[in-house]
């Protein structure tokens, strides 16, 4: 058992929430003019979202054939012997995979929560690593375990990251039969030299093959991942990748700007903004190009790096993250958010194994007790909602954290509304012009949230500077 006592704290969905205790823990200044009704209305308040039981689970399947040069995720490289093989056979008996999945299953089974209700999971995301390297039989075991432990909605979104060259039609079919209904295909680039330069285990041929397999299997909801700002990448190459991506007609595209992380091969060799990496200006140009080409092709740019064909193809699992809602996570190095606690599991297999053992005998603490620092919650919400095109819901935010914060944030953002980096929208999502916004901010009598319902970053200029803009709001919340 994780908790020795069943604390009344977890009665948040009953009529007597425990918000007052939370709210006065921190944030007393900002919260002083919060209407009492907002505090009482715990079940819908942003400040209590994390208290509910999660309906999403992230499952980390860390296996890769080899590590990509930019990658700093917790992965387990299987080596080249796997890569040449007919996938279905060889991986079937790789004890490293089997052992890991068994451990993962133990973790899921050992996961006890104290929620009054245990709603079925609505989304499951198999991330990696390269989850498509895992034999369907083992994926099935994981899904069964999740299902018996938490329950699984019949229409749950079950995503899996898959890399070209690691699956064939048969395997994909098998996975689909198990319930996998969303594929995230790690294409990254359409240029042989770029794939090679970033140490991908596949070439362009495998990319086309994979796309063909996904389409032939009739996966309706599939996403293509692309990386911009790769070394030696030119604007022409990037435009070509985007064009080919659009031609492949995925229902979703994720475009990631290359992050050069310390400790990776790239980190050792390259400096961001310096050749052969594109300059800051070029890299911004890549981002803008992606935004305009993909939007031109009918994709909605609904999150900093995500595009979807229509509402139904937005990644529901990721929306949980952006909505600051709770989610489980299982597996090596994975991060969960339950009971207000963001918890990352050990990134090394040995420590993770110990963690699972601790979990089984009740010694591991991965689940929060619902107590949170409200400033943390507020900054999380700012950071996450500004990633989305929906933006920050001003009214809701004000109700949760006080009108003063909203006013201060609006003041800080005023010049950026004027410069067009930030967009203000009314409740009909009509844009509130900057001069009107200025008036609203300047007038102490006016309740801004009556006129401005959403604040969001403009695509692409605001998105491009999201760090700057978000950190400004952070400065307001915790100076």
């Amino acid at each position, binding site marked *: 058992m994780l908790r020795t006592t069943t604390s009344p704290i977890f009665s948040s969905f009953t009529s007597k929430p425990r918000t007052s205790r939370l709210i006065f823990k921190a944030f007393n200044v900002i919260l002083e003019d919060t209407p009492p009704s907002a505090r009482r209305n715990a079940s819908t308040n942003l400040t209590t979202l994390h208290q509910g039981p999660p309906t999403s689970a*992230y499952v*980390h399947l860390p296996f890769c054939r080899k590590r990509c040069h930019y990658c700093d*995720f917790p992965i387990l490289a299987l080596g080249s012997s796997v890569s040449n093989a007919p996938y279905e056979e060889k991986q079937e008996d790789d004890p490293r995979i089997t052992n890991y999945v068994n451990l993962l299953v133990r973790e899921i089974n050992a996961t006890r929560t104290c929620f009054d209700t245990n709603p079925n999971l609505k989304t499951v*995301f198999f*991330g990696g690593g390269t989850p498509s390297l895992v034999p369907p039989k083992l994926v099935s075991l994981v899904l069964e375990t999740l299902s018996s432990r938490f329950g699984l909605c019949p229409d749950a979104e079950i995503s899996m990251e898959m890399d070209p060259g690691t699956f064939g039609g048969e395997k994909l079919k098998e996975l689909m039969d198990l319930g996998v209904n969303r594929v995230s295909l790690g294409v990254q680039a359409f240029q042989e030299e770029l794939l090679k330069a970033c140490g991908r285990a596949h070439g362009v041929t495998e990319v086309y093959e994979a796309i063909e397999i996904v389409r032939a299997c009739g996966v309706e909801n599939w996403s293509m991942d692309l990386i911009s700002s790769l070394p030696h990448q030119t604007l022409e190459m990037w435009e070509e990748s985007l064009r080919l991506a659009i031609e492949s007609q995925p229902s979703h595209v*994720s475009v*990631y*700007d290359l*992050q050069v992380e310390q400790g990776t091969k790239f980190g050792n060799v390259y400096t961001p903004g310096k050749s052969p990496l594109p300059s*800051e*200006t070029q*890299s*911004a140009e890549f*981002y803008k190009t992606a935004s305009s080409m993909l939007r031109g092709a009918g994709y909605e740019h609904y999150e*900093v*790096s995500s595009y979807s064909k229509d509402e139904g193809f937005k990644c529901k699992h990721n929306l*949980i*993250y952006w909505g600051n809602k709770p*989610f489980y*996570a299982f597996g090596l190095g*994975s*991060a*969960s*958010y339950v009971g207000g606690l*963001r918890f*990352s599991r050990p990134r090394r297999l040995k420590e993770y194994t110990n963690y699972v053992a601790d979990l089984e005998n009740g010694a591991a603490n991965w689940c929060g007790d619902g107590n949170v620092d409200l400033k943390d919650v507020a*900054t*999380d919400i700012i*950071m*996450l909602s500004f*990633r989305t095109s929906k933006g920050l819901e001003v009214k809701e935010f004000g109700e949760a954290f006080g009108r003063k914060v909203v006013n201060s944030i609006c003041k800080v953002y005023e*010049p*950026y509304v004027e*410069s067009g*980096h930030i967009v203000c929208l009314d409740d009909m999502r009509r844009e509130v012009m900057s001069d009107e916004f200025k008036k609203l901010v300047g007038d102490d009598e006016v309740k801004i949230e009556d006129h401005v319902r959403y604040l969001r970053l403009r695509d692409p200029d605001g*998105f*491009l*500077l*999201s*760090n*700057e*803009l*978000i*950190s*400004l709001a*952070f*400065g307001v919340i*915790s100076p």
Partner: protein
Amino acid sequence: MGSMYRASKTLKSSRQALTLLFNPVKSIGRDPSCSGLHQAYGFSSDSKQNSREPAIDLTQFPSEKIRNFSIIAHIDHGKSTLADRLMELTGTIKKGHGQPQYLDKLQVERERGITVKAQTATMFYENKVKDQEASAFLLNLIDTPGHVDFSYEVSRSLSACQGALLVVDAAQGVQAQTVANFYLAFEANLTIVPVINKIDQPTADPDRVKAQLKSMFDLDTDEVLLVSAKTGLGLEHVLPAVIERIPPPPGISDSPLRMLLFDSFFNEYKGVVCYVSVVDGMLTKGDKVSFAATGQSYEVLDVGIMHPELTSTGMLLTGQVGYIVTGMRTTKEARIGDTIYRTKTTVEPLPGFKPVRHMVFSGVYPADGSDFEALTHAIEKLTCNDASVSVAKETSAALGMGFRCGFLGLLHMDVFHQRLEQEYGTQVISTIPTVPYTFEYSDGSKLQVQNPAALPSNPKYRVTASWEPTVIATIILPSEYVGAVINLCSDRRGQQLEYTFIDAQRVFLKYQLPLREIVVDFYDELKSITSGYASFDYEDAEYQKSDLVKLDILLNGQAVDALATIVHNQKAYRVGKELVEKLKNFIERQMFEVMIQAAIGSKIIARDTISAMRKNVLAKCYGGDITRKKKLLEKQKEGKKRMKRVGSVDIPHEAFQQILKVS
């Protein structure tokens, strides 16, 4: 070898630093009172007083048995060592600091600079002249700071003396500070006793130095003493020379009491301790005395000599130098140079000193705006013991609330900043040092400017004239560097006053230079072009008429007050261009394009732009792990705290520091 660079060492052994060294560096930050610093001192002197019986009888020393002298020298020419040796020789301190008893009592003081205390000290010396009976003398060694910044203090210390030992290094010969100090002593009518020190060195060349002393100062080479303070060689001739050559103090013992207040410091237990020199008459414990300048009266609670620590004697007689304690609350009541006399008598006040002239001003701001209180506190405590800094609150649009501080000179300013940071942990931004200018307008009004930002950029009336302070600089250097140094001086708008050879290798240059031209990097530049072989010193000279303009720096059209400077018209373009370039390097890209301009009035003389930041985007929050990205954002937020915002432009603290440092 450079005087200013090394000067901080002089400072340590100087009287100015008395306060500095009495203030144990470590305890300052913790001690809430202004001067808990003197605790150790107070304790030791009290215990000393109790343990050292019988008390010293000063009546045995009438004026003719007293000599008041100081030691003046260029940095590192051996002033401190010589002072130590003389005190050892007279038993004022024990040789090698080896006496366990002494150490036990005064370990703290020793660690914190016994030399300092010991150097303004009373010594007793039995002088044996051939065939005559030995006779006891009371010798007051009055310490002086070596550096020009403190020349006003040198003068005031010298005014309590009748003679000075002019110490010159046997290998290095006459240096810039030697010259400056010589003239200060000479102007104070002191008898100069030339001493060539370090004659034991292999490179010593006393004959060459003697020739320099002759040619530079017209000193009689036969009268030069040759010593090695290190080995003790020739040391025995020093005090007899002091007694023979330096006249006794001239005061009149049966006149009413007149004392010169020449220094003060704060002691937690005793309160303000005043260093005095009795010019006429005598003083006894319990006397009521008045201070001419402040009109305040006090009772003398304690009186004594520095032997070397405060030692009560119950009295001070004509010509003697010692301390008094009156229960004064702050050193501000003790105006240096004031005349102290017996209450209800009438005396002619002593000439006193010129009031402190603040020649270098700079704004001091907390690096983090929220630290203003901490800075206020630190400055209050610092100035409590260093009244020579002038402090006035000022506000800058760019830097927030801060202080405009006036300093005696560059070194003084550096020391002040250093102490703020080191002793109080206060991170400060200081604005470009400036000098006091005078502007005259067409309506006849005049404006004194200590802060360039205070000078209107577009004044109502036309500026008809402007004046700036100048200095007379002394530079002594090996002759091969003369060309480069002359170029430097003329680039700095200097006017050559003198160019002479001290001997075959060394040249003596005298320049009148605008103070503004030397306040920032002149000395560094001088050192670099002469490979460190030039020595430099300067003294204040008169104001000169100059074509001065205010140079504004604008960011997106808004003037940044903290970056405003006053420059000579001819240099405005160059300075403006340099400042704009530097700013461009230090200001990071912003969300908007930033235009940097340098302007005189409404005329833009230099401009550049920093293009807008293009991309600063959040990476993928993989698998919902947002903690790393959040840390990044928190860091970025913290980074913004280190920014000063002018209009919509964020300027990092470092930019101010760097720009202000190098301009």
